[in-house]
């Protein structure tokens, strides 16, 4: 494997209700999701249920198994403590995660699709927020694709990578730690303020870096670790691990998301193949290095590595690039897939430009674009770094309203480059990727909204008319349920029951 693997991105958005006397984030988030469901979702999907239950199903040759659940429909429709939770026709999940609205993208297979269905998530959030304004019952809701309120709270943008269970976890820790620390040079979304609840106003690369307090661990909401050990594969746990990456920033920039997903997937491929064994890139003091890299916008800070080496973050990234290129050449030669070739080329170019002058990346990377904007204000208005206007720019950069969000305004001026058109994003808002099980999930919801009782990543539960019990269709294999695999069955089936019969045939 190369940059191609089963991946996904989950993003918690910042949420505010300007003018509200008391802000209840959970209630506002619930209102947001429900407004979207009311206005965009058909039939039973107006009030669909996420199915939390786990089941270890048997599979037939197609990767499906039908088990007639004994449960009465009412048992499966637990209201999840009243928190809104919908599954979209593009295979994504849109729900309330504690005090934030969250969009979890459908499973995708490559970094370009990761960007596209992440942008689809922005479109979902924009629409949902718009509904809350036009419905006019309550105050409008504003949403921010960032990771901190700059007052001590942080919320995440998590990446998920399905990878081989065979790869020893120690080698994941050993290699991904230096990789995550150094990749901040292009993944950083930029932040004004140093420290969780900043006492000092200076600019740094990452929104998230200062919120990490451990090297390895299970937590995600406190004492956050650089390497998170949560592992629910939502697939065959004997073969796969789902690497849950919590260290990244939420990016407005397409290129940053693209590089973040593609480079990480490629490094995982090297780990899975054993290509890196015998080498060592361990960082001596990871947490300190994490902060040091983020806090130095000149990108010159040296990091102490094993073997008495002192390298900058760019030098560490160049080493990863070089190893990746060697790996691809030795493993695939001229047969390298175009997606991996494109990723390697862009990764190398970005490192060259960052090395020469980071400002050359102001139209492709968030931290540079935002920095350039702040610098322009500082120059024109003679502002100190502590000026409230600059902090406002920091927040408003991530505002997802097309007319008020600064990143989106930069995109409209062609000063932050997009990878996809509005039409492509709109299509991805409605339709799932065709090359993963998200296709099956999304098409079931699109075609048979009235017959889906519940759904989650690894199964869909049908409530068929005239049947007493529910029918669960497991989708445990993420590479099955694709267009190629089941597209023709959807064409042949006139209704959900026929589809079920065809699947069982």
């Amino acid at each position, binding site marked *: 494997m190369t940059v191609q693997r089963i991946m996904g991105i989950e993003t918690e958005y910042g949420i505010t209700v300007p003018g509200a006397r008391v802000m209840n984030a959970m209630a506002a988030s619930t209102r947001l999701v429900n407004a979207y469901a009311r206005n965009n979702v058909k039939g039973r999907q107006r009030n669909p249920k996420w199915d939390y239950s786990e089941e270890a199903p048997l599979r037939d040759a197609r990767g499906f198994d039908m088990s007639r659940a004994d449960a009465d429909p009412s048992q499966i429709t637990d209201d999840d403590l009243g928190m809104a939770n919908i599954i979209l026709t593009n295979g994504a999940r849109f729900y309330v995660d*504690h005090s*934030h609205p969250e969009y979890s993208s459908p499973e995708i297979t490559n970094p370009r699709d990761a960007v596209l269905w992440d942008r689809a998530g922005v479109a979902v959030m924009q629409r949902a927020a718009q509904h809350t304004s036009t419905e006019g019952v309550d105050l409008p809701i504003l949403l921010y694709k960032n990771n901190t309120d*700059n007052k001590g*709270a942080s919320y995440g943008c*998590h990446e998920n990578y399905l990878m081989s269970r065979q790869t020893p976890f120690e080698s994941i820790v050993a290699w991904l730690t230096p990789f995550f620390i150094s990749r901040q040079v292009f993944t950083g979304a930029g932040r004004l303020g140093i420290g969780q609840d900043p006492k000092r106003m200076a600019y740094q690369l990452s929104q998230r870096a200062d919120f990490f307090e451990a090297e390895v661990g299970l937590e995600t909401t406190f004492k956050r670790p650089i390497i998170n050990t949560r592992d629910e594969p939502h697939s065959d746990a004997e073969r796969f691990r789902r690497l849950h990456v919590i260290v990244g920033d939420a990016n407005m920039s397409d290129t940053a998301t693209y590089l973040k997903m593609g480079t990480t997937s490629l490094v995982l491929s090297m780990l899975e193949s054993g290509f890196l064994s015998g080498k060592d890139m361990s960082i001596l003091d990871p947490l300190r290095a994490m902060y040091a890299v983020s806090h130095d916008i000149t990108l010159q800070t040296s990091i102490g590595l094993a073997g008495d080496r002192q390298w900058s973050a760019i030098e560490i990234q160049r080493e990863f690039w070089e190893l990746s290129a060697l790996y691809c050449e030795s493993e695939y030669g001229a047969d390298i897939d175009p997606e991996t070739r*494109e990723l390697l080329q862009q990764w190398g170019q970005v490192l060259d430009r960052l090395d020469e*002058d980071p400002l050359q990346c102001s*139209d492709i990377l968030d931290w540079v674009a935002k920095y350039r904007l702040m610098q322009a204000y500082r120059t024109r208005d003679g502002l100190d770094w502590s000026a409230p206007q600059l902090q406002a720019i920091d927040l408003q950069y991530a505002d997802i309203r097309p007319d008020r969000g600064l990143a989106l305004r930069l995109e409209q001026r062609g000063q932050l480059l997009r990878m996809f058109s509005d039409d492509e994003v709109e299509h991805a808002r409605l339709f799932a990727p065709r090359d993963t099980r998200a296709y099956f999930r999304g098409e079931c919801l699109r075609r048979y909204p009235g017959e889906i009782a519940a759904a989650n990543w690894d199964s869909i539960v049908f409530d068929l008319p005239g049947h007493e019990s529910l029918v669960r269709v497991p989708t445990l294999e993420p590479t099955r349920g694709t267009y190629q695999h089941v597209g023709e069955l959807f064409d042949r089936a006139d209704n959900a029951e026929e589809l079920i019969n065809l699947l069982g045939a």
Partner: protein
Amino acid sequence: MPQRENAERKVNRPEQEGAASDVPVQTGSAEHKAALDADVDSLLDEIDDVLEINAEEFVKSFVQKGGQ
């Protein structure tokens, strides 16, 4: 600091042929940067119009609960 070769010298960069045409970094060049700089006044004028009027109040009121 150890002598480090530029990655380009050690490994041939993959051919550009066949790569997607909409490679976004192509315009991130020094020339492009100069063009962006020239545009900065009109950019700031535009941002002035959309920035929150009371920046201090806006920043103060942006309070979130911690998440994952």
